């Protein structure tokens, strides 16, 4: 694995895992990576996080599932996925051929489901890490409750950690009063990293039909609109925990990545921007390399938490 781009040091660590650069792709926005092969040299990315996987296959929510909002979008995919077995037999097969660390995003409706899916993934070749989705707002059971209650968040973290053979990253919900409380709870429970934020819960209405724009009524808000909230939460969490913090939310450009790193992120995930510019992630890697070179930094790690307070 090439650890440097053009001789520039972009490496960062997430627990025991070394990434060649801090640019990851966000779950649910990058498919199973192969969709982006026409556009991106996947091996140049820091890591990819695949679409959320549950124990059993899910059909997901009925249409419409997405709607655009001002500088953002709402989605209520409802966690459509092939289930862990087919994920391992079909998707991992092709993912292994891509020379990039793969994080598997997992979710469950019950503690047992989290435990089972983690055990099932344990030891599967080619999985670099697990991202535990405790925050998805779309499924009524499970998701919301786990991510908004520090105790439940801790219990899930522990269950997954105990059954995993790779570093685990817990993905936090922004729909809480104090995200640092949840972050500290999952840190204490053994998480190797936290990623944030998942989507903000939102609603869109079509005034003509007087109906919700999404069949599921509510959905998750993502994109540039939420960036200020994500950046604030990353800043708060980075000060509250000593784990690596992975910044997510409205990131599209190199400048966005730099801002999240200044706020305290060790790495970032690019989400909705992949839809607009499929090359966003690779362009950010290139941009960071350029930045480190022109600013003559020893490494990109110098940016982490480098925010200068007034």
């Amino acid at each position, binding site marked *: 694995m090439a650890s440097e781009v053009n001789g520039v040091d972009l490496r960062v660590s997430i627990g025991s895992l070394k990434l060649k650069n801090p640019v990851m792709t966000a779950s*649910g*926005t*990058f*498919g199973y990576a192969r*969709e*982006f092969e*026409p*556009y991106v040299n996947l091996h140049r990315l820091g890591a990819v996080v695949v*679409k959320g996987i549950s124990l059993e296959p899910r*059909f*997901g929510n*009925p*249409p*419409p*599932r*997405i*709607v*655009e909002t*001002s*500088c*953002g*979008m709402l*989605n209520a*995919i409802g966690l*459509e996925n092939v289930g862990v077995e087919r994920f391992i037999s079909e998707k991992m097969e092709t993912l292994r051929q891509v020379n990039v660390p793969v994080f598997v995003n997992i979710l469950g409706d019950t503690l047992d489901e989290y435990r089972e899916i983690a055990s099932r993934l344990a030891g599967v070749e080619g999985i670099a890490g697990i991202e535990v989705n405790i925050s998805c707002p779309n499924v009524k059971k499970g998701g919301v409750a786990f991510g908004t209650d520090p105790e439940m968040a801790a219990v899930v973290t522990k269950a997954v950690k105990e059954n995993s053979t790779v570093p685990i990253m817990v993905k936090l919900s922004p729909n809480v009063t104090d995200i640092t409380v949840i972050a500290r709870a999952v840190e204490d429970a053994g998480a190797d990293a936290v990623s944030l934020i998942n989507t903000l819960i939102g609603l869109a209405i079509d005034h003509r039909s007087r109906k919700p724009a999404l069949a599921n009524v509510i959905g998750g808000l993502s*994109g*540039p609109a939420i960036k200020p909230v994500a950046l604030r939460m990353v800043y708060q969490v980075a000060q509250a925990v000593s784990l690596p913090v992975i910044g997510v939310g409205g990131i599209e450009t190199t400048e966005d990545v730099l801002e999240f790193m200044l706020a305290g992120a060790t790495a970032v995930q690019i989400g*909705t921007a*992949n*839809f*607009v*510019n*499929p*090359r966003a992630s690779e362009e950010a890697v290139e941009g960071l390399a350029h930045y480190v070179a022109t600013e003559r930094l020893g490494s990109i790690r110098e940016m982490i938490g480098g925010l200068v307070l007034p």
Partner: protein
Amino acid sequence: MPQFQKKTQIIRIERFASDIVRLTLDSPDIASVARPGQFVMIRTGNGKDPLLRRPFSISQTSNQKHFQILFKVVGRGTLLLSHCREGEFLSVLGPLGSGFTVDCQRMNCLVGGGMGIAPLLFLGKTLSRTCPENSPLVVVGSRTKEELEPLVNDFNEIGLTVHPATDDGSLGHHGLVTDVLKKLDLRGDSEIFVCGPHPMMAAVHFFCEERGYACQVSMETSMACGMGACLGCIVPVKNGAYAHACSDGPVFDSKELLWQVR
């Protein structure tokens, strides 16, 4: 299948009606590999609002160099696009999705309504070339002559006979394309290629099912990515499951889909 993300130059703008525009875009990469039924995703502005790309069928290609899209202004994205000037560049992803599958042995019939005619032009052209012995029938309908005539002319130029229909009777049949379709003398092995408003496609599907014709439909849904990544663009299929319009489609065998009986 090759796909590209390209800055393509607008080399021609045609306005068929106040709200119907055709753009000719310069992109040898896309034009040379595109197949009828495929589409592109286009950024309609440079800012972050509108945020997402908009999907448009590839409506024709020429000389493996240019391709066209034909669209109607229905919202902010298409409005922005309609304000573009010749010489400007648009960011385009494509070609995306599966295309139509054609069988020269069958009696082929293209049925299009409104902007659904766009991909059928490309299909008609390809059919005339690949099945020279077997000209497809063409039934297309629109609101009025003004917007339908240029498209009818394009079909005529390829040498295809068109059965037009308009809502106001200003060109061809006064009424629905489905009326026209039903009156055609179709062989038992007919395959209907249909693209248009959902109710029209549903009607054609049920008609084909009744008659035992094969039927391919091109489905429109909201799309965020166009490449199978967001899972937003679903269409219901049998057994409560969903297919993805962008990657499994947009062209489907109509029998695979779940149609609401109206």
